[in-house]
């Protein structure tokens, strides 16, 4: 792209400079990886995010195939109880297990369906049985289930849940930032371009809003009106546009007097058109930086609200919800906090570093 002396536009030069920032590129790679994992990962982990394994609750993180020897017997005991049978003997041989079931009355073989239904075992095969049906020997394949990040209090796979939660957290981060971006850019550009009394009134309003304890209002809104995703998006977006408006206004003030804007005006373009076509695109650099740094703030605010139980509600989940669950179970299962917290922190750090790199790249002095 930059072969020889071909001149490139400021946007392309910015991207080229960004490409040379190794930390920012690494951060971008991490972000893309997390986003892809959240998008496609849940289909690949082999677990449904809401599938609960009651026998495998709060498993620690690890690569061991489950159910392992420790969990096999209790799981089978529970299943035998549901089948109204007694578990007389269990013998594991690799991937199959040989069960000896006993019962007082004749055993109903149809209840063997409980075994595959638990998702931990395959189709059972009857090997031997007493004629009166009180003793039955069954061979059943044991499935190998993997829970790399462990399971939660209900025995659900934490990795799958982290990835599904990431979809919600990232979606809220991006959408709320977009809301803040649209309001902030529109408001700031209008105030800065129109100027005069309009500008004074509009920015005075921003000053007043700055002094409002907004987080408190967001909490009030979410407590009073059943917390919903839309409400939270609107609430967060409405809080976070103020900085954006100030940045865009400052940029606009300096752009307003530039020749290309005067030329546009001389050509007879109307104010909305000049703002849209000539002012807004030229504020791209600082706005991109501010937006990149806004996303982690929004995600943090969302998880903070979800942590308080005011944000995302079951059955939907977000990193904040999972962290709240982990914090409650921290004494018995610290891995339940570690998994989602690692996802959240990695995303936030990567976004911050990307924003820093972008800021350096946008700064024309860095060339």
């Amino acid at each position, binding site marked *: 792209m930059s072969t020889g002396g071909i001149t490139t536009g400021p946007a392309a030069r910015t991207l080229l400079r960004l490409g040379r920032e190794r*930390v920012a590129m690494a951060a971008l790679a991490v972000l893309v990886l997390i986003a892809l994992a959240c998008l496609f990962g849940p289909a690949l982990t082999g677990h449904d995010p809401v599938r609960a394994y009651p026998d495998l609750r709060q498993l620690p993180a690890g690569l061991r195939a489950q159910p392992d020897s420790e969990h096999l017997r209790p799981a089978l005991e529970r299943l035998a109880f549901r089948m109204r049978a007694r578990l007389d003997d269990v013998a594991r041989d690799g991937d199959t297990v040989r069960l000896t079931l006993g019962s007082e009355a004749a055993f109903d073989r149809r209840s063997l369906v409980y075994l595959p239904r638990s998702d931990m075992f395959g189709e059972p095969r009857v090997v031997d049985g007493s004629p009166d049906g009180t003793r039955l020997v069954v061979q059943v394949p044991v499935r190998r289930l993997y829970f790399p990040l462990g399971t939660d209090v209900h025995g659900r796979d934490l990795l799958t849940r982290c990835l599904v939660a990431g979809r919600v957290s990232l979606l809220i981060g991006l959408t709320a930032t977009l809301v803040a971006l649209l309001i902030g850019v529109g408001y700031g550009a209008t105030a800065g371009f129109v100027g005069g009394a309009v500008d004074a009134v509009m920015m005075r309003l921003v000053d*007043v809003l*700055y*002094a*409002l*304890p907004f987080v*408190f*209002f967001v*909490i*009030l*809104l979410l*407590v*009073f*009106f059943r917390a919903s995703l839309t409400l939270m998006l609107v609430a967060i977006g409405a809080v976070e546009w103020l900085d954006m408006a100030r940045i865009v206004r400052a940029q606009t003030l300096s752009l307003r007097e530039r020749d290309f804007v005067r030329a546009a005006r001389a050509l007879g373009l109307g104010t909305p058109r000049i703002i849209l076509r000539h002012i807004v695109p030229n504020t791209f650099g600082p706005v991109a930086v501010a937006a990149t740094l806004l996303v*982690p703030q929004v995600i*943090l605010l969302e*998880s*903070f609200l979800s*942590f*308080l139980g005011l944000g995302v509600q079951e059955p939907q989940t977000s990193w*904040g919800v999972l*962290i*709240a669950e*982990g*914090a409650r179970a*921290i*004494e018995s299962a*610290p891995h339940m*906090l570690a998994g989602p*917290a690692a996802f*959240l*922190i990695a995303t*936030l*750090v990567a976004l*911050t*570093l990307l924003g*820093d790199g972008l800021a350096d790249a946008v700064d024309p002095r860095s060339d």
Partner: protein
Amino acid sequence: MIRFILRRLAQSVPTLFAVVAVSFFLMRLAPGGPFDLERPLAPAAMDNLRRVYGLDRRLNVQFGGYLAALARGDLGPSFSFRDQSVRDLIARGLPISATLGALALSLATCLGIGLGTVAALRRGGALDRLLGLGAALSLSLPSFVVAPLLQIVFGLTLRWLPLSGWEGGAPSHLILPVVTLALPQVGALARLTRASLGEVLRTQPVRTMRSLGLPPVRITRHALRGALLPVVAYLAPLAAALLTGSVVVETIFGLPGIGRYFVEGALNRDYTLVMGTVLVVAVLVIALNLIADLACAWLDPRLRRLA
């Protein structure tokens, strides 16, 4: 100077009015009332309660009554804490939140500005990059992750510090909440200081001082004075946020601060308690912003003329 302060105080009146109005009507719009219980009260008892607390009057009359009481400095009775006024509750909760906030603020300011200065002086070096990474990390550590982690490490495993509680403000009970509150702000302040000081260090006067052979420590001192402007501007809302208590930290560490009162008030539809806490926060935000502007004027003589 006095005129500047007076004008700012006059400007804060509409802001405070907006805070009171928004929170008042927001709460009355909300479904549910302060006397809704699992088992509904007898209608006669409910009517009595509503009459005693003036909830049977028209909304605008109630609002007028609240404003009139507010003008006398009366925040009203609490709806959920029986026989206690909102002023008593805030008088009890605010010192706790403010103690924690002040300690966290001092810790974050010292560490943040110090580390930011070091990073700016070593710009581009290994130490700078390490500090930058650390700052990004500290910004990204949510308090609701840090708090349980600190509890499990220092409270449960090492048994050095108590898990939670206030106990009259014993130092050992303060350490974990203060660290949790300060940690993200250390990163924020360090980044701000680094960026701002880095900018100042590239200006002409600093180059002149260098060429004159001034010792680096003195140059840094001069540069820091100008570079602290954005830091001070950031400190004002930060101080307000820290002094008025963190909902999360107070919840996790079981501290009876003002943040807890706010959340409990909101959940119980305790109208007066919520309004009182929101108002206190707003007053603090406005007061601290004013102080920050005055501090900026003191740091930068150019701003005095504008004021």
